[in-house]
Structures are given as structure tokens and as C-alpha cells.
């Protein structure tokens, strides 16, 4: 019976904590030029990622979470304006040339997308697509590349890998395709892996397989990971640290245990309380965050984007965005009135 204990502690190793950041994003802003003006999708987002660390970016639609990943990867639309700094292993990715980016992408930085069907080439066999990465980035011969690709498919536990190398993407199930994507991303042993909703399209049973696999491979190779997701359960199970985005801005940044134990930002607090839980018995009703998520707009608002839905709002919230301040060693929050640290699990309130 495949009883599996989910993997060990989050990165608590002192040595790791002291390590310099592999990725440092500073004041990242992404806007899109439209005939009507500039729409701001991401605004002044900053974070660090240490080697071997898994960070989750959580947010609802329009929070800018995917745009952060695309900006790191340099995959921006033509009408995008990106400002700030993205330092990766000593280079500023935003000032890198196209050729410089091409050397990095696929080799040092790899990405997994939500829908593996649209990110694999339907015309080429799996084996060829995998080998191409190695031929291009590592200059391997065709034979060696095929051998390495086969070994990688074994590593992501694709049964009967030899036969599957000869299949086309449409001949594989969703879970298998996502394994192929992971295999492809890990082929060149990247130092940074970006995953945009990697399991959202999959069934829970397959999601459990894929997350477990990703964790295992990443821990083995010391790769740093950024996972973008809207599922707080996925965050709790896989991440070391969490970045909570709303309306393109950072609401809260915290270690995973801290975030779930003592969410400080009213938005994080509300999200956790609004979530139905498997463990709890049915409550009177779920707590709700009033209103709807804010869509990125043309108008720059001076205050906190969450203010219109926030029950702890004061006048100042609408006038000026609060700065990010540290509440604890592993928790920073952008709020004038964060929940106090001792408040444990969010209280349930009926509306």
C-alpha cells in the first residue's frame, strides 16, 4: 500500500536561511498600454527566494500572480511596461538582452504552465520535444539527449517510458502530460522553477501525485520554486513561504506555518475563514469577504486595493497604501490595522 508521509519540515536550516537570495524581485511593476491608458496589473511587488526554497504566490483572478511569473521569465506581451529589478544569480533579468534571456530560459530558469496540452507541441513526439531541450542548451548529441530524456521520464515515474517517448501529446492523459512538462522543465537541472497553477487542471488524486513528485525532485536537486496557485491547500502542503497578492500588490509575506496560524492581513484572514475545511464540522455558514475581487483598472488608486472590501478599513486605507512592515521574523504585512499575532485560527462570523 503506497502510504506516503508528506515530506519533511519547511526550510528551517540555519545554513539555508543565511544563504544569499537566488532570486530577488524589487519593486516590480507590470502595466499594459492600451489606447485608453495604462492598466496596472502588478504594482511594487518585492520578494526574495533562497536556494532550495519553495514559495507560493496566492491570489484571486486579477491579482497579478501569473504576471509576476511571466515577468521573471521575460514572457511579456508587446504592450507591457515592466519596471523594477529582477536579480537572478547576480544578473538583472530586466536589462538582459534577448540572447542572454534565451541562454537562461529552459536551462537555469524553467517554467511549468497550467495546461500541458497547449504548452506541448502537438506535432512532435514527446521524445523529440524532450531531447530538443538538451540538444539546444547542453549541446548534447541526439543519441545522448534521447538517453537523458528517457532517464528523466523514468524519474518522473512515467511507466513504460520507452514506448511513451514515441507518443504524441494527445495520446497521453492530463496527469501524464503534466509529468512530461515537469520532466522537460527539470532536464537541464534549472536553479529556478516557475510553476503557474501546475495542478489546477488535474483531479485531486493526480494532483497529489504531481505535487508529491515535484517536492521530491526539487528537494533532491536543490532547485528553488515559485508556485502560483489559488488553492490554499496546495500552498499548505508544498510551500515554505507564501506571498499573498491582491489587486497587483503584496498584502502579506510569511512563512507557511505562520501564515496559516496567525494570518495578519484582513484579506488573508478572510480567505482562510471563507474556506470550507475537511476537518471541521459544518458551521452555521461560511464567513464571507463582502464584494468581488478588484479587476486591474486604468485608474491608479492611492490607497490599499483591498480597502473597499475590508471590514477593518479606516480612512487612511483609502488615502495611502500602507508600507510593508515586519510583524515577526517571518511575517511582513502591508496593513495599518493587521490582526494581532495572538489571534489564532480566524474566528467564524455569520453574515
Amino acid at each position, binding site marked *: 500500500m*503506497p502510504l*506516503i508521509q*508528506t515530506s519533511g519540515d519547511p526550510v528551517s536550516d540555519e545554513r539555508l536561511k543565511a544563504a544569499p537570495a537566488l532570486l530577488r524581485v524589487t519593486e516590480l511593476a507590470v502595466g499594459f498600454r492600451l489606447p485608453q491608458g495604462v492598466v496596472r496589473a502588478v504594482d511594487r511587488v518585492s520578494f526574495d527566494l533562497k536556494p532550495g526554497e519553495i514559495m507560493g504566490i496566492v491570489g484571486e483572478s486579477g491579482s497579478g500572480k501569473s504576471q509576476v511569473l511571466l515577468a521573471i521569465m521575460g514572457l511579456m506581451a508587446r504592450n507591457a511596461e515592466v519596471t523594477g529589478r529582477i536579480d537572478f544569480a547576480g544578473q538583472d533579468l530586466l536589462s538582459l538582452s534577448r540572447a542572454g534571456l534565451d541562454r537562461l530560459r529552459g536551462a537555469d530558469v524553467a517554467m511549468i504552465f497550467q495546461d500541458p496540452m497547449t504548452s506541448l507541441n502537438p506535432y512532435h513526439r514527446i521524445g523529440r520535444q524532450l531531447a530538443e531541450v538538451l540538444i539546444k542548451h547542453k549541446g548534447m548529441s541526439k543519441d545522448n539527449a534521447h538517453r537523458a530524456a528517457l532517464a528523466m521520464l523514468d524519474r518522473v515515474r512515467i511507466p513504460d517510458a520507452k514506448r511513451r517517448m514515441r507518443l504524441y501529446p494527445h495520446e497521453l*492523459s492530463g496527469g501524464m502530460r503534466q509529468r512530461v512538462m515537469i520532466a522537460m522543465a527539470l532536464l537541464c537541472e534549472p536553479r529556478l522553477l516557475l510553476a503557474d497553477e501546475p495542478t489546477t487542471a488535474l483531479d485531486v488524486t493526480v494532483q*497529489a501525485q504531481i505535487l508529491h513528485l515535484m517536492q521530491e525532485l526539487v528537494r533532491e536537486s536543490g532547485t528553488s520554486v515559485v508556485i502560483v496557485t489559488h488553492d490554499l*491547500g496546495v500552498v499548505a502542503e508544498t510551500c515554505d513561504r507564501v506571498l499573498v497578492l491582491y489587486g497587483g500588490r503584496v498584502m502579506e509575506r510569511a512563512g507557511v506555518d505562520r501564515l*496559516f496560524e496567525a494570518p495578519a492581513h484582513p484579506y488573508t484572514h*478572510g*480567505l482562510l475563514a471563507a474556506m470550507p475545511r475537511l476537518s471541521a464540522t459544518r458551521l452555521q*455558514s461560511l464567513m464571507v469577504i463582502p464584494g468581488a475581487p478588484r479587476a486591474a483598472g486604468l485608474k491608479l488608486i492611492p490607497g490599499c486595493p483591498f480597502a473597499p472590501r475590508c471590514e477593518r478599513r479606516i480612512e487612511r486605507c483609502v488615502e495611502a497604501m500602507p508600507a510593508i512592515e515586519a510583524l515577526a521574523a517571518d511575517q511582513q504585512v502591508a496593513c495599518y490595522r493587521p490582526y494581532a499575532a495572538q489571534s489564532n485560527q480566524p474566528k467564524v462570523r455569520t453574515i
Partner: protein
Amino acid sequence: MSGPAVHEKSMPVLSVKDLKVHFPARAGMGWLRSPLTVKAVDGVSFDLMPGEILGVIGESGCGKSTLGRAILKLIPASHGEILWSGRDVTNLPEAAIRAGRQAMQIIFQDPLASLDPRMTVGQIIGQPLKTFEPGMKRSDLEQRVTATMRQVGLNPSMFNRYPHEFSGGQCQRIGIARAIITRPRLIVCDEPVSALDMSIQSHIINLLLRLRDELGMALIFISHNMSVVQHISDRILVLYLGREMEIADRDALFAAPLHPYSKALLSAVPIPDPKLSRQRARVILEGDTPSPITPPSGCVFRTRCPIAIDRCAEHVPALSSYGPRQRAACHRIGEAVASSLADGVGSANRPGRGPEPSALS
């Protein structure tokens, strides 16, 4: 909110008996092509009492949506019986059941796609009334529509707006208003919150629970999201490849799932609590769901089952009762229960009221 308003003596809103929905499929090439069938739903039975919420869970392709549509006779059943409030509608022509349709409604997954973009919100919500009560005065109809809008939390001043002007959560409220305006006895909710943002999901779940309490209709709540299903349901049906694996009261299922598939499915759900999730041991299923065109022999789950034995490949396990309101289809449940009792685990399986198969095949 006080439990389900289930009256033991009242007649079920819906009875489904050995329901099968098979679709023709083709495989092979040229003249070697042979007609095959996809057994989307294959022998499902249950009763649904007024005011009860039945959650239907399972992986993609397990037949949950097909079941929901077959119940409403939106697709024909291949075998079995469907009774609406005691009336057998399985083989009745559309004209004969048309009037009964106002008691049976549906809410869809994609809130915007299920609303006609050229109709105003008032027209959309009022349409079922126009259909079923054609003689109704216009002023009465408008009154019913605005009252229903208020009931689902929509501002009646939006009566003349179009669907594209609304957010996903509001569109879902419009869909719900359209479903409840005829005062149905049953609503099939097919993944009603899956397309919504997480801070909006709780709005809709709370709304559905409140409407159930106010109006007393039964719900069939189809979802792949286990925690949502657990929160809303009174009873839960677990489907795998069109077959009923287990059906049980919500608390019984989540406290002590009997079928190995139910166990695996529940343990695969990520828990939003990092400490707890690090402690728990999980059953991670290998592989993917087999094709419903060529399902495994015997128990359909056996190819992924961690405790399958030879017998599972030979005989289809019958759905047997374990306790008053828990049924499961597995050859090995008796043994599993015995061993868990021996280990002193399985708090819900106390001796005395412990599961005893009453209809072992």
C-alpha cells in the same frame, strides 16, 4: 440552519433505480471499426428526500455530470428507472413531462455562458415563469422576478441590465434566481462554484444553504471539490467510472470512509493547515482513471486499488449496507474493518454498531 428538513414518511423527490447511461463510441479503423459503448453511468440507485442535499463526488469522467443530466431527462437513460416525486418518468415523452419540469431545475458551472447575452437579467429570471405560467400578468411576473432577485441578493434595480455587466458571482446568483423562481422541489447544481474566485465561493455556498432552508428544495450538488461538498451535503455519493463506490451520510463518510477509493479520494485533498498536512499519512493512488470504454473486469477500481485481490478481477462487488445509511461496493470491506478493529483504530466502527455486511454477494 437546523439539519435537513427530511421527513421520514414523506415521498422521495427523486428515486433513481439501477440507472445506466451508455453512449455509443467507435474505435478501430476503417471496416474494422466496431461499435462500442461508453458506460458513463452504470447502475446507480438512490432516493432523495425533500430538502436533502446529496453531494456527488468523483474524478473527471466518473459520470457525475451525466448522472445529473440524466436525472433531469436532458439525456436519455439506457436502463433503469427515474421517478420524480413517485412518478415514473423514465420512458415518458417530453410532452408528458413538460409540466413536471418546473419542479426540476439546474444550475451550471460557467455562470456567464449559461445566460443568454441578449436578454436582460429580468427577462432571464422571468423566462421560466413565462414558460410555465403563460397567463401570468406582466405586473405579477415583474413582482415575482424582483422578489426573487432580492432573495438571492441581487439588487432589483439591475432588472434591465445585461449579463456581461455582472461579475462571475453575480451571474451565478442570476442562474440561481432563474432556477428557484418556479419553486422547484429539486435543483441539480453542476459544479456551481468551481469557476468562481475563492472569496466568492463562500457567498454562493451560503446562499444555496439559506435557500434550501427557506424553500425546502432538495439539491444534488455535483463537484470535484471535496471540502465544498463536505460543507454543503447531508449525504454523499462517490462515483468511479460510472459506478457507485459508496453512498453515506456526510459525517460517516468523512469520519470513516469504507471504500478504498473514498479513502484515497479524501486523503488526496490538500489540507489548508501546514502542520496537519505534514503529520498525516496519505494514500496516493497510482496512475490515472482507466478508459470508460474498456473498464477493468470485476471491480472497476481494482487497477488502482491498494488492497485489490484476485477476486476483485473476477466478480463485481455488490453494493452492500454497512450500518443504517452507509452502502459501499467492495469485496474487502469486511476484512478491512476486522483488521482496523484489531488494531484498535476505526473509532467510528465501534463493535455493536460496527458495519456488518447485510447483503454480501
